């Protein structure tokens, strides 16, 4: 009996061994996948849960801001909450993934808001991959309740980064020129700032002078701009967001560029220590570098034509600018000292307002084409490989990069017989996802801040 059993078992084990061999030997079919789609990823973001009414309301607001951010990025598409099957009640339990897969949600973001007796808000969230059923992220932020919107942006950035591999850009702001009509019918142009999604707009400057062409400092604490003052002069200014103090850079106590020349829109070097600016000297415009500590102003281009709109490379070692030295306005790159000036655009038409990408590889530009229409485009910083047009229209100005270099905001002008209508739009690097940034009234000259720290 035992022997029989033993023999049977031995046979069994042998069979097991035999069985494994051919299966292991079988060669898998090899498939090379080189194509993919670029469709937005469906993400389900139910309202963050809250133990009480106040927390639940905040949770709904936070989910709304995150949904909006991710949708606006063009890389995600929020799943309609009406389709949700599972009701999230506890974010520390694994979701029923099937319920989310069946509504085609590739990722699920669940969160919880608690507000304690000392008015401290905690926001916890978990990001799930519904296909692999893995948690991709689980984080918690603490703040005060009035800061909920910034937390929503930070959560959006975390989700964006986890799902794309790329740095986010939602916790950032945009400074721009808000247009309005004064009592005398003249157009007023004042600096305003808003969150990247258009929330929290507020004005920075008053109606006694025109403020134009703002740019953020790397610290996000200061803004440079051009003031077209009552005396008619255009002068470069520095505005400190913390103190509200404005400082004229090149007159008054500062170095004088020339007796009566104007100075235009300064932009910060990536290290924040110096500015680069176009200013008029002896009748034409040149690029200058201004050291903010030593207050030394150094002219770095010298050509009888007009060199304007300088913009630093993120490494700080190069500068792109526009110049009509060839007859028509084109873009040029040079070292930070003004050496090795190299033209990078060659096509028909004129190029203006270059902005070096924070990634370093591309330069965004405005191009005025034959026939007068405008385009927003990008070209490699070394001018190779041609250019890519992202938007074409009646008028374009002032491209500015989102902190991660994936999105550009710009001034768009739309034809209206009684006066061009200006507004701020954004578009992604592929030329998709064109959308208007909400501003109250006409707006122009957007400049995106770096990520707020």
């Amino acid at each position, binding site marked *: 009996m035992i022997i029989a059993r033993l023999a049977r078992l031995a046979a069994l084990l042998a069979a097991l061994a035999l069985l494994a061999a051919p299966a292991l030997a079988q060669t898998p079919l090899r498939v090379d996948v080189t194509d993919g789609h670029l469709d937005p990823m469906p993400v389900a973001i139910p309202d963050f849960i809250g133990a009480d009414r106040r927390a639940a309301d905040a949770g709904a607001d936070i989910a709304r801001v995150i949904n909006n951010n991710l949708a606006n990025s063009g890389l995600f598409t929020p799943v309609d909450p009406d389709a949700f099957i599972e009701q999230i009640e506890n974010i520390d339990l694994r979701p029923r993934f099937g319920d989310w897969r069946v509504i085609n949600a590739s990722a699920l973001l669940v969160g919880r808001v608690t507000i304690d007796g000392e008015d401290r808000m905690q926001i916890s969230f978990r990001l799930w991959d519904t296909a692999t059923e893995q948690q991709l992220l689980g984080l918690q932020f603490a703040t005060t309740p009035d800061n909920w919107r910034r937390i929503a942006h930070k959560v959006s950035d975390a989700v964006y980064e986890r799902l794309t591999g790329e740095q986010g850009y939602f916790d950032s702001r945009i400074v721009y020129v808000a247009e309005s009509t004064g009592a005398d019918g003249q157009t007023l142009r004042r600096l305003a700032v808003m969150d990247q999604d258009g929330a929290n707009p507020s004005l920075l400057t008053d109606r006694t002078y025109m403020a*134009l062409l703002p740019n953020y400092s790397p610290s996000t604490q200061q803004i440079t701009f*051009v003031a077209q003052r009552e005396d008619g002069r255009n002068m470069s200014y520095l505005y400190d967001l913390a103190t509200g103090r404005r400082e004229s850079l090149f007159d008054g106590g500062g170095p004088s560029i020339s007796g009566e020349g104007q100075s235009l829109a300064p932009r910060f070097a990536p290290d924040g220590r110096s500015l680069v600016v176009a200013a008029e000297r002896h009748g*034409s415009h040149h690029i200058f570098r201004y050291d903010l500590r030593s207050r030394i102003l150094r002219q770095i281009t010298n050509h009888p034509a*007009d060199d304007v709109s300088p913009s630093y490379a993120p490494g700080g070692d190069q500068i792109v600018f526009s110049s009509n030295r060839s007859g028509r306005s084109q873009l040029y790159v040079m070292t930070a000292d003004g050496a090795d000036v190299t033209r990078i655009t060659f096509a028909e038409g004129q190029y203006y307002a270059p902005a070096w990408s924070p990634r370093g590889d591309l330069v965004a530009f405005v191009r005025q084409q034959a026939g007068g229409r405008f385009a927003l485009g990008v070209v490699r910083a070394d001018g190779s490989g041609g250019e890519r047009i992202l938007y074409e229209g009646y008028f374009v100005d002032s491209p500015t990069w989102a902190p991660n270099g994936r999105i550009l905001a710009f001034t768009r002008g739309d034809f209206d017989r009684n006066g061009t209508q200006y507004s701020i739009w954004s578009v992604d690097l592929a030329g998709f996802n064109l959308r208007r940034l909400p501003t109250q009234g006409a707006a122009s000259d957007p400049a995106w801040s770096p990520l707020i720290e």
Partner: protein
Amino acid sequence: MMRLTFAAVAALGLLASACASRPDVDPDPITNGGSGNVTPDNGPVQPEGPTPGTPEHFAATAGDRVFYGYDRHDLTNEARETLRQQAAWLASYSNTRVLIAGNADERGTREYNLALGARRANAARDFLVAQGVDPSRIETVSYGKERPTCRQSTEECWAINRNATTVIQSGSMS
């Protein structure tokens, strides 16, 4: 035909210049079309009209603005003629100082147009200086495209807005 168009634009421009002392008012180049021809053909002094030596007088007799081609800052023959009259007027009223403001149309980017406006103002100033006006009497600024005379999105409007406008700063002491 080209010539005709240009004449019309120039006439409109002169019309617009008549409004220069009232910069808040947008002249309507269409409806005001009839009474445009105020180009003086004799010396700087007009028997009737604005008080001699005033900004109004300057505008009416010499013409207070000159126009430029698209994306240009070189002076046309018409512009030179106007500037010669401005120089003659300034010679007659030697106590005056002027501000020359360069303007651009809206079909250019903001910063480029600030530079272009400065170029236009400088071109006008340089011509006046060449005509004997003391450079210390002249100040220049650029309004870029920020202070257009005419706001409509038409070629006519843009042509009017491409100018350098000479404004008498301090009234004549004479």
